[in-house]
């Protein structure tokens, strides 16, 4: 309901000249909403549009590794990452990490989401809050927690050693294994949240109906529960995938320099090598990857939904 709509009947009752009032409130409306919008728009232009636009422009400049930038218009910065096998490797590793983390995260989040969606417990609200509260804790702190758990003298290695199961500590940090475990946990709240919201059509009544019509537990799950929760699962996978391929803190800390993904490469090019045009080009490549995936996803959901 809009202000114009609610004011119109009042005006009629007051016997005012309707058309004129409509017009004047229309003009006043316009001034009001513009006044409300403009400061925010300016704020976002300064803090969001300008940096991105400047970065895209920078990616067409020529850079030398010592921080000298030549103002020009060239595609050189794109040719290197697209032809150098090293950057193909990095991009592929990034992609692979995103898929692995996405799949594992969906796998561990699904039971929790299913439990929360079905729960009739009076603690359901609290349990949902506990599951998504880690979203609001620092990524640095949670990554540190995983370093404590997975490190050479960490919880896992000390426990296994204490039980006499291993002689040399397992290598769980400073490699992709550690990064993957950390990311799966860090993105679980996102996946759970996406799944609960995507389980709209899932209802216990449907499952009961299938059961009373003679379907076995397994049949109920594969024929009713799983298909109906598929949209939620897909959204969760995609969300975790895009979050993983762009995340920086966890690959940096748990990877300890030996895991190279696009995000860590962008950082190294920026602060280490001062090759800003190149870092900008890598960022644009990451953005394009992002856009493509989201476009494919929208196609897919349309197909599933229709």
């Amino acid at each position, binding site marked *: 309901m809009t202000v114009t709509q609610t004011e119109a009947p009042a005006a009629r009752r007051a016997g005012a000249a309707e058309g004129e009032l409509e017009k004047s409130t229309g003009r006043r409306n316009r001034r009001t909403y513009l006044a409300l919008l403009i400061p925010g728009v300016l704020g*976002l232009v300064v803090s969001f549009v*300008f940096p991105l636009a400047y970065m895209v422009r920078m990616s067409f400049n020529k850079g030398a590794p010592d921080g000298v930038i030549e103002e020009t218009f060239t595609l050189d910065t794109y040719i290197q990452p697209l032809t150098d096998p090293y950057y193909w490797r990095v991009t592929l590793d990034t992609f692979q990490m995103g898929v692995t983390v996405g799949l594992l995260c969906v796998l561990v989040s699904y039971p929790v989401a299913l439990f929360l969606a079905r729960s009739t417990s009076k603690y359901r609200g609290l349990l949902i809050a506990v599951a998504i509260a880690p979203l609001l804790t620092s990524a640095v702190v949670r990554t540190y927690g995983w370093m404590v758990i997975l490190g050479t*003298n960490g*919880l896992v290695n*000390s426990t296994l050693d204490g039980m006499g199961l291993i002689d040399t500590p397992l290598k769980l940090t400073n490699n992709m294994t550690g990064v993957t475990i950390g990311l799966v*946990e860090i993105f679980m709240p996102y996946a759970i949240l996406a799944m609960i919201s995507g389980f709209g059509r899932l209802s216990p009544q449907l499952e009961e109906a299938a059961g009373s019509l003679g379907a076995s537990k397994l049949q109920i799950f594969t024929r009713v529960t799983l298909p109906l929760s598929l949209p939620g699962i897909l959204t969760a996978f995609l969300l975790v995938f895009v979050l993983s*391929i762009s995340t920086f803190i966890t690959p940096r800390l748990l990877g300890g320099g030996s895991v190279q993904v696009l995000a860590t490469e962008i950082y190294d090019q920026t602060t280490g090598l001062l090759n800003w045009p190149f870092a900008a080009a890598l960022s644009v490549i990451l953005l394009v990857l992002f856009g493509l995936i989201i476009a494919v996803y929208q196609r897919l959901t349309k197909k599933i939904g229709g």
Partner: protein
Amino acid sequence: MSEARLFKPRFNPAKPAFGILVFLLYLFLLAPLLIVFVVSFASNQYLSFPPEGLTFKWYEMLPEESTFMNGMRVSLIVAVIVTVIVLALGVPVALALDRFEFKAKAAVQSFFLSPLLIPSIVLALGMVLLFGPLNLNNTYTGIIIGHVAITIPFVIRTTLMSLATTDTSCEAAARILGAGSWTVFRRITLPIIQPGVIAGGVIAFIVSFDEAVISLFVAESGLPTLPVQVLRYVENSADAAVAALSVILILISLAVVVVVERAMGLRKALR
């Protein structure tokens, strides 16, 4: 009697098994937070297990650790100013989006939510590049501008959420009774949207306070925020001082969670 028995569910071993699975997954989800708690009270000189004894020395060390204290000060100043700015910018935008009709509405709304879709590393790079010639790197202004983009969507979303659940009849009534626009906003609209504003404000605060990537790019050398200091410390040292600090950060997050949950529900606010 026999009929009643027919419908009584048999004992189903799958049920407790599922319960145990969910419990273990919760444990996995909370593991890094719980372990930080344990380590922060352990007297082991270097990170190792099992804990050798109980100590508060890591907490007592914190006030003397000047890098942490300086970082804390920078982060607090940044987070408070960012919160004030994004509330001042974001709440009016949400009002315009909900209470007015205009052509580009859908586009404006996606524009304001779009920073959440852009990887923060890409934004961070854009900022460090743009701020270079403007001499804004390593300044409060630089970090604050950087954080505005990533926090404003939260404020707009939570405010829109509380606006959507209320109808406009109160406001219309007040207007008919002769209240001016400002009075209507102050006396009617503001109380209605208060939960959304509070939730959005504290979320903006904690997102800015915990933000590490933009701060790292824009101000690592000159004005490191607390997350940047923690990041550096974790990379170089193995003792548990940072665990004590982490526990404090977790407690601050917990306070935010409680406020948001009370105001409008965490799930609704973060959807």
